[in-house]
Every structure is written in structure tokens, then in C-alpha cells.
């Protein structure tokens, strides 16, 4: 059926922001999946995953946000389609459509670069975020549906187990429990994966603050890389990006606000922004993040907590 964006015409789209500078180079790729607001593609040679996302979505790691106001992404892309990028200009096979990447602003979605004034996380701010989350938790699991209740209990159980094992620097046990979270839950990025993503963010942050977490981080992250096959392609992509230090801008903005001890209204806004991701994704990511940030320092050698 004819549409507004008639396919015989040439369509030019600009990138508004780039989650990575790599994409400005020359590469070829293949479209893997097509959604209403996102197109995932795999780069030939490196196998790296990236995505074109609608201007309506917030910045995500490795994602390229397009000015797609005049088009529907579903009309121009299809799974298996080839993409040809020559010095920042992407051409789609079969379609007369050009995507200009060079004007896109590089969005800083890289966690280690987050702007912070303080050296340590503010406890007051963490408590405030937890308060928002406590109040939100009931609504997700208040249904009488028995599967939802069981899911909630299972997620909580393994979340607590992983934190307890990490506190004791027992990485092997933490990995075994993490194996139970992979792919567990509802949604395209299941809750278990999002909680793990939160853990990964938290562990990155603690190692930035100079806590002796470096070895544990390396061990745990390496193990998680081998677990990601237990979940779908989209979630897998975000977990691997997370291990490399890439997260959504919304999450990084919240973490920066906590570090910089912003006022409650700002932290509340940024918390709500994170929690608006997906259905429960934002909430689940914060669950994992808060669980790790709540850990006190630990002694890796002694394998017992220094505090608490």
C-alpha cells in the first residue's frame, strides 16, 4: 500500500545522536530485527551489534538515534537487509534511503567517564532512590496471578544470593546464582537480565571509587559473558555493552546526580526517567544497582566483609 514515505522517492535521514564514535567509519552490516522504534543490526567482521532507534527513545549504549519524524522505521527496514556505510553515510539496500551519521552528537553513555564532583556515592541520595523504588515495587507484583508472584520471589531470592556471595568475594557461587537469573522474567529484556545489568553497573562504580573490587570485577564479568547465551539477542547485546562500560544515558545521568548530591527533585526526576524504561526494566536495573551500591567495603583477601 502506498504510504507517505513513497518508496520510489529518496529519503534522507540524519542521526541525532550516536552512542558510539565507531559507527562514523566505513562498515557493512546486516539488519537482525525490526521493531516499531528500533532496528538492530550486526556489523560484518566484528560481529558487534548496534541499533538505529527512533528520536522518541532516550539514548542507549551503542544506539544511533535518528530523526525519524517523517518516516516509519518498519517501512524502510526489514530483517536481513544489508547496510552499507561509507565514511558516515549509510545506504540501505533496495531502498533509496540515506542515513547521515556525521552530524550526530556523540552521547556519552560510557560509565567510567561520568561527570562527578564527589568521590563517593551519597548515602542520602541512595536512600532517596530506594524509597522511590520501595513505593513502586508493590504495583508490579500486586496482581493475584500466581506466576507473577512466584517470579517475583524467585528474582528476589537470586538477587539476595548474588549480593551475599559477592560480599564474601565468592565469585563462583555468585556466578551460579547469576546463571539462574539469565533470561528469567518477562519482557524483551527479562527482569533477571536487567537486575544483572544493574549489578554490572554497580560493580563498575565501586571499582571507580577505588574499592578493592578490581579482581572480583574481572572474574565476575568474564563469567557473565559466558552466560549471556541463555537469553535473547537484544538483552544479550545490552549485557555485553554493560560489561564494556556502556549504559543508557538515563542511568548514567541518575548515577551522576547521586555522585554530585543533587537535590531531591532532580534525583526523583532522574529516578523516574530510569524507571520509565520498558515495562519494569528501569526498576529492575535499579534493583541490581542499589543492591550492589548498598554493599559495604569488603576484604577480598579475608573473604569477609569489613563492615556489616
Amino acid at each position: 500500500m502506498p504510504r507517505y514515505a513513497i518508496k520510489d522517492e529518496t529519503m534522507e535521514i540524519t542521526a541525532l545522536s550516536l552512542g558510539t564514535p565507531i559507527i562514523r567509519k566505513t562498515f557493512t552490516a546486516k539488519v537482525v530485527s525490526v521493531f516499531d522504534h528500533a532496528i538492530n543490526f550486526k556489523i560484518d567482521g566484528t560481529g558487534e551489534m548496534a541499533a538505529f532507534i527512533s528520536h522518541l527513545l532516550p539514548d542507549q549504549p551503542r544506539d544511533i538515534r535518528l530523526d525519524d519524524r517523517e518516516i516509519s522505521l518498519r517501512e524502510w527496514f526489514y530483517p536481513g537487509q544489508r547496510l552499507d556505510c561509507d565514511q558516515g553515510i549509510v545506504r540501505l539496500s533496495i531502498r533509496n534511503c540515506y542515513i547521515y551519521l556525521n552530524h550526530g552528537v556523540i552521547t556519552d553513555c560510557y560509565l567510567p567517564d561520568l561527570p562527578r564532583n564527589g568521590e563517593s556515592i551519597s548515602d542520602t541520595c541512595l536512600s532517596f532512590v530506594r524509597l522511590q523504588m520501595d513505593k513502586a515495587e508493590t504495583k508490579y507484583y500486586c496482581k493475584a496471578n500466581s506466576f507473577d508472584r512466584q517470579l517475583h520471589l524467585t528474582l528476589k531470592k537470586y538477587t539476595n544470593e548474588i549480593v551475599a556471595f559477592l560480599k564474601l568475594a565468592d565469585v563462583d557461587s555468585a556466578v551460579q546464582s547469576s546463571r539462574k537469573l539469565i533470561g528469567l522474567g518477562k519482557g524483551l529484556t527479562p527482569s533477571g537480565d536487567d537486575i544483572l545489568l544493574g549489578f554490572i553497573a554497580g560493580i563498575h562504580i565501586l571499582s571507580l571509587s577505588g574499592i578493592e573490587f578490581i579482581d572480583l570485577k574481572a572474574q565476575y564479568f568474564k563469567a557473565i559473558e559466558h552466560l549471556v547465551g541463555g537469553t535473547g539477542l537484544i538483552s544479550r547485546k545490552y549485557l555485553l555493552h554493560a560489561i564494556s562500560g556502556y549504559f543508557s544515558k538515563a542511568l548514567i545521568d541518575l548515577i551522576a546526580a547521586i555522585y554530585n548530591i543533587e537535590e531531591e527533585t532532580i534525583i526523583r526526576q532522574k529516578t523516574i526517567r530510569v524507571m520509565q524504561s520498558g515495562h519494569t526494566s528501569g526498576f529492575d536495573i535499579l534493583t541490581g544497582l542499589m543492591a550492589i551500591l548498598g554493599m559495604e567495603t569488603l576484604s577480598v583477601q579475608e573473604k569477609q566483609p569489613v563492615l556489616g
Partner: protein
Amino acid sequence: MITGQRVLRNLYRDSVSLMQLSDEIQSMEGISQASAIMASENNISLLVDSGLLADKIPPSPNDLLVVVEGEDQNAVEAALEAVDALLSKRADDEEGGEVESFQPRSIPMGIEKMAGANLALISTPGVYAAAEALKAMHMGLHVMMFSDNVSHEDEVMLKRYSDEHNLLFMGPDCGTAIVNGIPLGFANVVSRGNIGVVAASGTGLQQVTSLIDRWGGGISQALGTGGHDLSAKVGGVTMKQGIRALAEDPDTKVIVLISKPPSPSVMEGVLKEAEKAGKPVIINFIGADPESINGKNLFGVPTLEAAAEAAVSFTNSTEKNIRNAVLHEAYLGLVDQIAVKLQPSQKYIRGLFSGGTFCFEALHLLGQKLGAFFSNIPINPEWKLVNVWQSQENTAIDLGDDLFTQGRPHPMIDFRLRNERLLQEARDPQTAIILLDIVLGFGSNMDPASEIVPAIKQAQKIAEISGRKIAFIASVCGTDKDPQNLSAQEKALADAGVILTESNAQAALLSAMVIKKIGG
């Protein structure tokens, strides 16, 4: 119970779509549970453990697994057969149909399709809303911005631009307006008339316009300003724009202003603008002393109902009525009737509101009569609830607050959270009165009575088992022209034993009188 499943290979849908799919299947006849979930190994194990899958199936995490539990085989098969249709329907909705029904995807496209349009209603995530609003205003459109989470700086910039270009800017966070007789957002169907309203409050606007309609008056225009307009930073720009527009409108004879009390500097500016209107301006700054409003054509009133009544009486050119905040004679007889049925342990009011302004107005009235009243939006910081999920003594909750609405529809649409809280209050032996607001109109639930009455009946049973009787007192905000059928809603509530008053203020005052009667 019978279970069934389907696997859909390599099917990608975002999380919200999957949730909606699950909900739609679960609502089908004969179905007790449904889940649309990725077919990962851990999900499959959990489904088997919870009895939704009979046996483990090979995991395939990129595939979508739909599992269904139903009363019988027919119900389960019907539900699974419907999955394809539901998924196709969702895709078709996005792609549009024939050329004639294509959906514009930008403001220029929208104007091209609808020549003569002069108002843009912006409802995007807050971070994009300012840019869209500017685009609209660049093209000469007035703006109603439903979006919230827009920064104060952007709001100031947008309103300055609108002022410079003689455009009306309603919002951000403006959910209610009636323009040229057309309800926008959450709004009621009211008669056209000669009363204009400017409100920094959605449900405040709804209450006033509905009561005006009920009492024989009509609305010329009802404009929303958004929640922050009357802050010191923003300066009441939209309220002043609205006053000027209504002052110049030949069809408007009386103007009503509604808001929480503005900052003093802003109030001064707004009242100055109102004085220049050349028409009577009735002002309800909720919670403020009406006597503090002085001006030759300015009339302060204590409640939303008083604003409506004053406006109607001014347009009728009969005796100008300005009502005080007192309980109507018609309800006085109910006080003893309710009080006599309460047990000694029952001492407190528990207000569960879907409208923030209704909660705020009730808190002021109840606070004046009874003292401390706890809330998530307290009028005194000392009365902030320690835990919003647990009432303390006299409590009134705004369930439309962000705390309660993240990731779920507003309580005017989705009654689940309020119903759960209602049952929780019913279990508390100290609960004497449960105070409610029911809001009709476009945007609201299409049958609120059928949503809440079962919970009320269950609550009554819970109380009865312990030898208690809880009084349910409510007001229904709406008109007989609203799609929900006002009289049917009121009848269903009354049949369930709910005591109905004509307005939110009367419901609060009645509740307060009962508590005072029993010694509270």
C-alpha cells in the same frame, strides 16, 4: 484447569507490547492466567514449577512463548488461536491502513491533513516536548502540553515565546481543557454558555465545569495552565493569557480562576490582570483565605463548589451567592445516621482520591475541622505520611501522585491500586469513613462504578465479619452528557451503600461532621 502454549519463532516485540498482549489474553473468557514471555531456560523452569507448563520444552531465548491457563480446553485453544490476530492487530495499528487513513508523523504533516487547525496537543516524553511545542508555535499554533517532566527553564522559554507571539500556551502537565465546547484530555461534556474558566488544576476544572453544567450554567472556554504556571519562576504567564483571552471574548460574561495559592508576587500580578478584565472574576485559591482577595470585580470563594455556584448566580443576574464552606442542610440528617452505626474503635477518615485537587481541597476542609490530617501531599509538612502505603490516623491520599503511577495508568482509569488500598483500610478497625472521588468524562474509566463497587462490597463484608460498619462517602464529578452515564453511575454506587454528595467539598464536610459527632 487446563494449560496450553505456543512458541512464536524469532518474534520481537517490546516489553510494553508483550505486557499488553498478556493482559488481553488474560481478559478473554475462561482464561485465568496468561503470559507472553521469552522462551529462555530459566523462564521455562519457572513456568513448569508454577504449573503453567506441563513439561519442559527445549529453550530458545529468541522465541516468544505464550502460555495460557483456562477453565477448559476450548477456552485455552481459543486464546492461543487469538494470539496471531492480536499480534497482527498490534502491527497493523502501527502501520496504518489505506492511503486515506494514513497517520501524520510530524506537525507539518498534521497541518497539511487538517487545514485550519490552530491548536497542537503535545503528548510526548517530557524531554522532547519543548522542541515539539516550539515547532508548533513556529507554525502559528497555540499549544496544549499534556507532557510533564519539562524543565522550568524550558517552560519559561516557551511561555515567553508564546506571549511574544500572542499564542496561548497551556501546560506543561496540562491534562484538562475545554476549547470551543470540545473536551481535551481528561474533561467532561458540559453545556456551552458564558462562564469562562482558567485553572491550574485538572480536577478542579472538572469539578467547577461539571457543577456549573449541573446547576444550569454553561462554559464558554475552560483553559488549563499546567501545574507550575503560578510558581515564582514562571510567573503565572498562562493564567494571565487566559484571563486576557476571556476578557476579550464576547461570549464570556464571568471568569473563574482556580488554583492552589500562588506565590505572593505572582498572586499580585494575576489579580491585577483580573481587575482589568472588566467582568466579574471569581477566584478560588484552594486553601487560601477568600477574604484576602480584594478588588472591585474580584470575588474570593472558599471551595470549588462555591466558585461554580457564584459563577452561575452572577450570570443569572439574580442575587449574587457566595457560599461558605459549610455542610448543606440536605446532608445534616445523615450525620447522626452514619455516626450511630460506628463502633468505638472506628475513629478515622481514610480518603482515597484519584484527583489531586480533590485530595488537596478535602485536606484543607478536613484539616480546618479536625486538625492533623496525614497525606502524601500534606498541607502541613509535619503531617507527611511516614509510609505512603500505610495510613496514619486521619489520612487522605492522592493516588494520582507520581509515586503511585509509575508504569501504570492513572487511578482515574485503572482502579486496581485504589481498590487494594480500600480493602486494606477496611481491615483496619480504626477506619470509620472511606472518602472517595469518582471522576467521569473523557479520558476516565468508562465504567467506574463497576470497577469500584465490587471492592466496596468486599470491604463491607470484611468489616461486617468484625462487627463493624464502614461509611463510604463519595462525590461523582461529571455531567449527564458524559459517556459514562452519570445517573447510572450514581445509582450503582448508591445501591452499594455509598453515600453520595453533590460535590467534593460536601463529601469532606460531611465526613468531618461525623467524626466530630463521635468525638474525633
